[in-house]
């Protein structure tokens, strides 16, 4: 992984670009069409999942496939606390509760499973998603005698701004964690866990806490996403695609810098949404071919490719360190 710190002269241009993009996003409901606002909400949702996945897995090297579990917990928190009739709590409080519930479960799961390594951790976390989904489905069908639940209708712009808020929060968290001592500890776990523990890093604590932080955003995103879905059941909420897509998006975008996962999520999700509506017959085919070609010809992700092209244009003055 690229360990480049922000230098003061390199800080301005990305800072200004970020500001312009942020202002553009924040004013989108004023000039964008109804469809565009919904589309960007979806893109933001995928970005949150991808960035919060990279926040934990990208830094520590533990490949988690539990994203769908935390996302689904958020969705169910919303379904339970925001029914169509008899709303008690404000939506934003429910979003916070969704995130908190995910975090608490992540603490438990993390303490139990983070001693598993490599593929075992990945498969365990994947199993967690399906286990929760199957048990919940069984519980709803045979105990509560319902197929799914309806969620309160919320204004589209409100959903958009909540999603944007969570997105900004996760980006800030990611930015500061990467620069902090805590982030350095996470990265050294990713490089060599035994060495990290020998130099005095409490590896269990760092892993469990970062797992909980990353799942907070997944849960919060799920809670607000539920109000967009309006009808949910266990299979919708805990769809395993939400575990796999963030991984694909992160690798597609490139994990070497803070922008990679966001760019990956935006391009990937946009491609998915437009292909699905315009070429619904062959959308998976195009998607698959693009994916295979991307892996063959962009091994460092999209941002890696851009950097490579940029280095070639600037005549090799910027030596890659």
């Amino acid at each position: 992984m690229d360990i480049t710190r922000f230098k003061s002269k390199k800080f301005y241009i990305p800072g200004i670009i970020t500001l312009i993009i942020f202002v553009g996003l924040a004013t989108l409901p004023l000039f964008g069409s109804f469809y565009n606002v919904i589309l960007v909400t979806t893109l933001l949702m995928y970005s949150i999942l991808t960035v919060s996945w990279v926040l934990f897995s990208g830094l520590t090297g533990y490949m988690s496939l539990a994203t769908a579990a935390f996302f689904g917990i958020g969705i169910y928190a919303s379904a339970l606390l925001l029914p169509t009739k008899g709303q008690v709590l404000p939506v934003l409080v429910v979003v916070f509760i969704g995130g908190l519930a995910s975090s608490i479960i992540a603490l438990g799961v993390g303490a139990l499973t983070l001693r598993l390594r490599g593929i075992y951790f990945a498969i365990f976390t994947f199993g967690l998603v399906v286990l929760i989904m199957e048990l919940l489905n069984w519980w709803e069908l045979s105990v509560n005698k319902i197929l799914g639940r309806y969620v309160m209708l919320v204004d589209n712009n409100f959903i958009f701004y909540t999603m944007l808020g969570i997105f900004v929060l996760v980006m800030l968290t990611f930015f500061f964690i990467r620069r902090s001592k805590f982030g350095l500890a996470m990265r050294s776990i990713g490089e060599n866990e035994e060495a990290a523990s020998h130099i005095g890093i409490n590896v269990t604590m760092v892993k469990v806490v970062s797992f909980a932080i990353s799942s907070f955003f997944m849960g919060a995103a799920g809670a607000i996403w539920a109000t967009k879905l309006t009808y949910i059941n266990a299979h919708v909420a805990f769809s395993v695609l939400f575990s796999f897509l963030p991984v694909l998006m992160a690798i597609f975008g490139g994990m070497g810098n803070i922008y990679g996962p966001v760019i990956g999520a935006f391009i990937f999700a946009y491609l998915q949404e437009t292909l699905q509506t315009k070429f619904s017959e062959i959308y998976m085919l195009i998607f698959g071919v693009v994916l295979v070609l991307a892996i063959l010809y962009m091994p460092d992700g999209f941002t890696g490719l851009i950097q490579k092209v940029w280095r070639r244009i600037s005549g090799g003055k910027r030596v890659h360190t």
Partner: protein
Amino acid sequence: MPESIVTILDITIGGLLLGGIYALIAMGLSLQYGVARVLNIAHGEFIMIGAFGTLTLYTVVGINPLICLAIIGPIIFVIGYLLQRTLFTSLRVKAPNPGAYEASSLLATFGLMFIIQNIALIAWGADYQAYSYLNFGVNIGGAIFSANKLVILGFSIGIGLAFYIFLARTRIGKGIRAAAQDPATASLMGVNINRVLALCFGFGAAMAGLAGVLYSMRIPLNPAMGLQYTVIAIIVIVLGGLGSIPGAFIGGLILGIIGEVVTYFDPSLSLAAYYFIFMLLLLVRPKGIFGK
């Protein structure tokens, strides 16, 4: 024969049948992941292709599904062989380290899954389809079993054992086992590593295809059916110990029997039971039953 013994026999046969299919699929994935280091998410798609191929050959051309084994198996083998030779070899050469190769090949198989599913969707449509073959009862000691159940059971265990003997006894099998232990050293000892890896991927895909041919006699088919079998195969190979072929075989049988027992009590809980046992085992013994 008393009712309870018939029930037990029924569950055992059903469990072994399911287990035999799982064992074939898992042995295939074990070759692909254990030797070729490709965690093939598109593995289930070869089952789907095998099953749909049989459906078409049987209902349109009128070829006996058991003869389809000899037609579809080699075709899927060639597809798998060529995939490893082109796509995955190119990824392997480009990857800076084995970890990067595992990640990029995993993603490539994801793309492959979408491609194969979409082609199947165009070819066969999204609806569930099924055909009927050897669908009559056979009386064994008072209990009635459908004939195709017994045929599938016999063939899947037969193919599994034959393949195990092939790995254990032949020269190519020895090469494959050597490559599984240490690819670099194996290639220094004169094993043509690219060819062995391609063989592994081809055999792995063919095993899935054969499982699909057999199982298509019992289940309704749909282009989206593949992923659940991929997931089961992953569970089985972890259960049996990554890279262990006998582990995959026995793990598959165990999982099949567990599945059938749980299904007897409450069908909607069988998947949950798989994962529960699997996660419990992973916590207690992460290396799997046969892992070293």
